[in-house]
C-alpha cells in the first residue's frame, strides 16, 4: 500500500512512525514544507521564554526504509483521479491512500502597516514555526518592550515568557476576558491578576489597529482605542487557520478545515484522509496536538485491523456525553501562571440539571477552581493557580475516573498526599502506637523497658529491638526514654509541688 502524507509536523510524522511500525505493507512518502525534520511546535513558546534549548525540540521520526521523507518540498497539486501528488520540485507521487497533515498557519490580523512587500515589518512576528521562534529570540538582545496580541494559550505563554526575560510586556486582547473560549470571567480576572504580578500589563476589549516604524523597524503600536504603546516587538498570537488550501484546490469539501467524518476520511473520496489541525472532524478541531495524535492513532488502528471502522474519538462507555473528549485538556505553559481547563469550561449552561458545577474562587492568592461533574464523572474543569489540583484533575479527566460522591472534595484538598496526620507528641502517644516500624515495637513496650531499668537507647534496643532495623526511630526512642524519666521525676515531685505530671516533659 502506497501512502502519501502531506505534512511532516508533530502529527504527520508520528502517524507515519506508528503506521510503518504496525503495518508491514505500508510504504510511505512524506512531503514536508519546512526544511526542518519534525520538531515539537508546542515548545516554541518555551524557546521564546528561554526555558528550552532549541536542540531539544527535534522529535522522533520513523526509522524504516519504507519511509521516504522529503523536507523543504511542499506539495502543490493533488490529482484525485490519477491518485497522485505533485511536489514543488516536480516529483509525482502516486498513492493508494492520501493523508493530509498540513497543520495550520498563524492568523495575521488586519493591522495597518504590519505587512510589507518583504513580509512582516521587522519587529513584528507570529510564532508558528522554529524560524519564527529563532527570529524573536534573535531580536531580544536589543528589545526592552514587547506587545503581545491575543490572550489565548500561546499569547499568555509568550507574554509571561518575555516578561520573565525582563521585557516590559503589554498583552492586548480583543475579548473582555483572557482565553475566552476556555475561561469564564471570574477565572479570567484571577488569571489577569496573576499576570499583572508577573509584570504583564493586560489590556482587554481592544486590538492593535496599526504599527508605527522608525527607519523600517517597529517602534510602537496604536490600539483601536487610540492609545499608543511604544514597543520593540509585536508578537501576534491571534489564532490559527487550518491549512486547507491544497485540499480545497483538489475539490475536497472544506469549511474552516478539511471536512472529514468520524472515520477521518473525506466524505467524497475514500482514498483521502485528514488528521491534526488541518482537519475538521464532526466534533470540531481543538487545535491541540493531543487531538491530532489521537486521530493518527485511530487511523492506524483502523488500517491495521483489516479496515475495521475508525473508533469514535473517545471510548465513552456508558457516559455518552458529547463534551467528554479526553484529549481536550488545555494547559498554559507559563512559569507562575497556572491555567488548565478541560472539557466543559468557561461559558456553559450552569443550570443544566445533569451537571453539578462546584467552584471555589480565592482571588487574593490567585486561585480559582471549578469542576463539572455529570453521572459521577468529571466532564469539565477550570483551574487557575493550583498545580496539585490541576494535575490530579487532568489525570482523572483523561482516564474518565469516577469522582468522589461529593465533587467538592475535588477542590477543597489535593487528592493525593494530603491529610498527613499531625505529628503526635511523645506524651500523647498511645501505648499501642508503633514506634519502631521495622520490628513492630509499640511505645508501651519501650516504656516497660524503661520501667525495667533501661536508661539508654542502646539498652532499650537490646531489650525491645526498637531502632535495630532502619534506625530511623532512634531519636524518638530517646525522647520516650526522656519523657519516662521526666514523668517519673515529676511524678515523684508532683505531690510536693502540686504540678500536673502530664505537663512535666514539655
Amino acid at each position, binding site marked *: 500500500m502506497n501512502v502519501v502524507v502531506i505534512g511532516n509536523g508533530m502529527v504527520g510524522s508520528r502517524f507515519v512512525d506508528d503506521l510503518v511500525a504496525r503495518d508491514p505493507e505500508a510504504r510511505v512518502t512524506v512531503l514536508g514544507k519546512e526544511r526542518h525534520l519534525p520538531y515539537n511546535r508546542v515548545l516554541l513558546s518555551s524557546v521564546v521564554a528561554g526555558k528550552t*534549548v532549541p536542540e531539544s525540540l527535534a522529535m522522533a521520526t520513523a526509522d524504516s526504509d519504507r519511509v521516504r521523507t522529503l523536507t523543504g518540498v511542499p506539495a502543490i497539486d493533488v490529482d484525485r483521479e490519477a491518485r497522485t501528488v505533485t511536489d514543488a520540485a516536480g516529483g509525482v507521487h502516486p498513492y493508494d491512500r492520501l493523508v493530509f497533515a498540513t497543520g495550520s498557519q498563524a492568523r495575521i490580523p488586519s493591522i495597518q502597516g504590519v505587512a510589507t512587500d518583504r513580509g512582516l515589518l521587522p519587529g513584528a512576528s507570529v510564532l508558528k514555526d522554529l524560524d519564527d521562534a529563532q527570529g524573536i529570540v534573535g531580536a531580544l538582545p536589543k528589545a526592552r518592550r514587547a506587545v503581545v496580541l491575543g490572550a489565548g494559550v500561546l499569547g499568555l505563554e509568550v507574554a509571561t515568557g518575555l516578561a520573565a526575560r525582563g521585557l516590559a510586556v503589554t498583552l492586548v486582547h480583543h475579548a473582555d476576558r483572557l482565553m475566552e473560549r476556555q475561561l469564564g470571567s471570574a477565572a479570567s480576572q484571577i488569571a489577569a491578576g496573576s499576570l499583572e504580578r508577573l509584570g504583564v500589563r493586560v489590556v482587554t476589549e481592544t486590538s492593535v489597529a496599526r504599527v508605527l516604524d522608525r527607519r523600517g523597524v517597529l517602534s510602537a503600536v496604536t490600539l483601536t482605542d487610540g492609545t499608543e504603546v511604544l514597543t520593540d516587538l509585536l508578537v501576534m498570537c491571534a489564532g490559527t487557520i487550518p491549512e486547507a488550501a491544497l485540499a480545497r484546490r483538489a475539490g475536497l469539501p472544506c469549511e474552516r478545515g478539511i471536512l472529514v467524518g468520524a472515520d477521518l476520511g473525506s466524505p467524497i473520496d475514500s482514498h483521502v484522509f485528514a488528521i491534526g489541525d488541518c482537519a475538521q472532524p464532526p466534533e470540531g478541531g481543538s487545535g491541540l496536538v493531543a487531538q491530532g495524535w489521537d486521530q493518527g492513532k485511530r487511523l492506524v488502528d483502523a488500517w491495521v485491523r483489516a479496515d475495521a471502522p475508525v473508533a469514535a474519538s473517545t471510548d465513552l462507555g456508558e457516559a455518552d456525553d458529547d463534551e467528554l473528549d479526553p484529549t481536550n485538556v488545555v*494547559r498554559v505553559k507559563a*512559569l507562575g501562571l497556572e491555567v488548565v481547563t478541560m472539557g466543559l469550561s468557561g461559558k456553559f449552561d450552569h443550570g443544566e440539571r445533569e451537571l453539578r458545577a462546584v467552584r471555589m474562587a480565592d482571588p487574593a492568592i490567585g486561585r480559582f477552581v471549578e469542576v463539572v461533574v455529570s453521572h459521577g464523572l468529571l466532564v469539565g474543569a477550570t483551574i487557575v493557580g493550583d*498545580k496539585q489540583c490541576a*494535575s490530579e484533575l487532568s489525570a482523572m479527566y483523561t482516564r474518565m475516573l*469516577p469522582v468522589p460522591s461529593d465533587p467538592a472534595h475535588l477542590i477543597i484538598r489535593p*487528592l493525593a498526599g494530603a491529610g498527613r496526620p499531625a505529628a503526635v507528641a511523645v506524651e500523647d502517644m498511645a501505648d499501642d502506637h508503633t514506634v519502631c516500624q521495622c520490628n513492630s515495637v509499640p511505645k508501651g513496650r519501650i516504656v516497660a523497658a524503661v520501667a525495667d531499668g533501661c536508661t539508654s537507647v542502646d539498652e532499650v534496643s537490646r531489650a525491645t529491638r526498637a531502632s*535495630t*532495623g532502619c534506625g530511623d526511630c532512634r531519636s524518638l526512642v530517646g525522647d520516650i526514654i526522656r519523657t519516662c524519666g521526666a514523668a517519673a521525676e515529676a511524678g515523684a515531685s508532683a505531690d510536693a509541688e502540686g504540678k500536673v505530671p502530664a505537663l512535666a516533659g514539655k
Partner: protein
Amino acid sequence: MTERPAGVATHCPYCALQCAQTLTPTPRERLPLEVAGRDFPTNRGGLCQKGWTSAEVLRARDRITSPMIRTADGGFRKAGWDEALDLIAGRVEQLQAESGREAIAIFGGGGLTNEKAYALGKFARVVLRTPFIDYNGRFCMSSAAAASNRAFGMDRGLGFPLADLGGADAVLILGSNMGVTMPPFVQHLAGARERGGLVVVDPRETVTAKLASGDQGEHLAPVPGTDMVVLLALTHIVLAEGLADLQYLEKRTSGLDDVRRSVAGWWPERAEAVCGIPAEQLRSTARLLAQASPVHGGRGAYVLTGRGMEQMSQGTACVTAAINLALCLGLIGREGSGFGPVTGQGNGQGGREHGQKSDQLPGYRMITDPAARAHVAGVWGVDPETLPGPGVPAVRLLDSLGRDGGPRALFVHGSNVVVSAPNADAVVESLRRLDLLVVSDLVPSETALLADVILPITQWAEEEGTMTNLEGRVIRRRKATDAPGEARSELWILGELARRLGVDRGFPEDPATVFDEMARASAGGVADYSGITYARLDAGEELQWPCPATDGTPHPGTPRVFLERFNTPDGRARMIAVDHHAPADDVRPGARTYLVTGRVLQHYQSGAQTRRVDELNAAQPESFVEVHPLLAERIGLAEGEDAILTTPRGEAVATVRVTEAIRPDTVFMPFHWAGAGSANRLTNDVTDPISGMPEFKVTAVTIARASVPDSTVPLGVSVS
C-alpha cells in the same frame, strides 16, 4: 553457668540486603540458635523483624522432615529417601521415554545459594537435557537485568557499594519501598535526606516515601503504570534546560540523539496530564537531580529502581528510561554517583548469573553463544552439542505445563508459584495438568501441597554456601545447626537423582567443591567469579564481581563497575529510545480503579516462611486492601469490612484498610497470602516482550463490598 558456644557469622535468610547476622547455638532451648545483628557495610548491625525472628522457621510446626509421597486418597505419606528418589527417577525416565527430554521442566528460585542455582542449571542441561528451566527471578529482576544488559553489556545490580549512597546529594528511588522491604537499607539514605535530596516515586505514600517528607526531599505519586512518563519528562527537562552532562554523553555513550528525539514529545505539561505529577514538580525534581550531579558540582546522585516500575509489560523500557536519565546526568561509571536496580530476593543477583535462566549458562553467558556453550561444556565434561538450547521464560513455562507438547513433569526449588506467580488460579490449573510435580521445600507451601512428591530440604542456618547480595558482593552463608529429621541439601538430592538417571559424577554434595567448579565455569563470562574462593571469603575479604582468576596477586574484586568503560564492544553505554504505553489492563468503564500490589514488612515473598512465625503473623495476620477515604466513601466501604475485588483473571476478598496514603484512584494489596485473599489471583500475566516480566504492578480492578445489603445501593456504584 555454662559458657555459650561461639557465634557463627552468616547472613539473613530473606532479602537481597543479606543483613549480617551472628547465630549463637542454644542447644537446650526451644530454638536451636539465637540471632543477633552483626556489623557489616550493608546493614551496619541492623535487622528487621523478619531477620530477628528468622530462627523460628527452623522449627516451624509443620516443617517437613522426611520425603512425602502423595497417596491415592489425596493425602501424603512419609517415605524414605531411596523410595522417593527411585520413584521420581522412574517416573522421569518413563515420561522421557514417552514424550522426549522436553517432557521435564525445572522451576528454580532466587533464594537458592549460588551453588544450588548452579547445580540446578547444570542438572537441567546435563542430566535431564531439557531446555525448560526458568525461575522466579523472572518475576523479580528480569526487566532490570534485560535493561542493564542491553545498555551496559552487564547487570551487576547496584554497580557500587551500597554505602556509597551516603555521600550523595540526591537519591531518586522509583518503585521501591525499602523502608518496608529491607529496612536497614534506609541508613544509607540519611545523607541525601539531610540535604533534601531524597526523591521517591510511588503511587502510595509508603514508609519510604515518608522519608522524603518535609525538607528531606520529594515524594511524587504518579498514576499507577506511569513511572515511565515521569522518567521521560525528567529526561526531557534535563535536556531542554541544558542541564545534561554533554561532555560525558559525548565521551561515554552512544544513542543520545535518538533519546533526545524520543523525549521531545514528553514536555512536562503533557506528562502532567498522564502521570498526575504537576509540571512544576517535575521541573524542580529534574533540577534537584541535576544540581546533585557531578557536572554541576554536586556531591553525586543515584537513580535506583524497584519492582514497582519494573513489574510492567513495559518494565524493560521503564528501566531503560531510568538508565537514560542517569546517563544524561552523567552518573553511571563514576565514583559517588550511579544507577542500580534494587534486587529483591536473597540471592536474586547470584540466582540470575549461574544458569537458572532459560537462556543462560553460568557466568551470565548466553546459551545461544557457541563459545559460551563450548566453555561451559568443557567444564562440565560433556559435548557442547548435547547441551539444549534456550527454553521459555517463567510465565510461558508455567502456562505450557501439561499442555499438548508442553512439559509433563516439573521440579520446583525455592519457589511457591501458587502464591507468587501472576494469575494464580491459572497456575494451579497448570500444576494440576502435570503427570509429576516434585517440590523441594522446608514446609508444606501452597505449591508443595499440590505435589506428587515433596522433598525436605535444608535451609539457611543448616547449610554452607554463598549468596551474592544486591551490590554483587559474594558472601558466605554458614552452618550453625543441623537440619531436623531427614532434611537434605538440594546439592545431595540432585546428585542422587543424577546417579539414578545415569550421570554418576559432576554433582558433589560439598558446596565448596561446587563453588570451585562454578567459578571455573564462570571464568571469562560477564559474571566472572573465578578469582573467588571460600578461603578468601572466610579470610574476610570483601569481593564484588567481576573477580577473575589471576596468576599473581589475587584480583581485588570490583566494588565499582564501568569506571573506565562499559562492557559493550565499543566501551560506551548504549542509550536506547523508549516510549510509554498504557497498562495492558487499563481502567475502563466497569473497572475504573487501579490495583497495585506489593509487600509488608513482616512477610517475605509468598509468605511460606514468614506466615509460620507467630510474631510476624500477629503483626500482619491476613490479606488486606488499602483504600483511600474518598474511594471508600464513594463505593460504601468501611474500615475492617471485607471488600471483593474482581479482574478478568479472578476474584479476591480482603479486609479494607482506609488510608490517605494512597491515590484515590488506586487500591493496594500485598501479595503474601494464598487463598481467598491472594492478590495474584487478580494480577495480569501479560508479560514484557523482552524480559518476560509479568505486569504484577498494575491492573484495572472492580472493587465493591463483599456483601451489599439489598436495600441500599451505595451512591456512585453505577459508574464504578
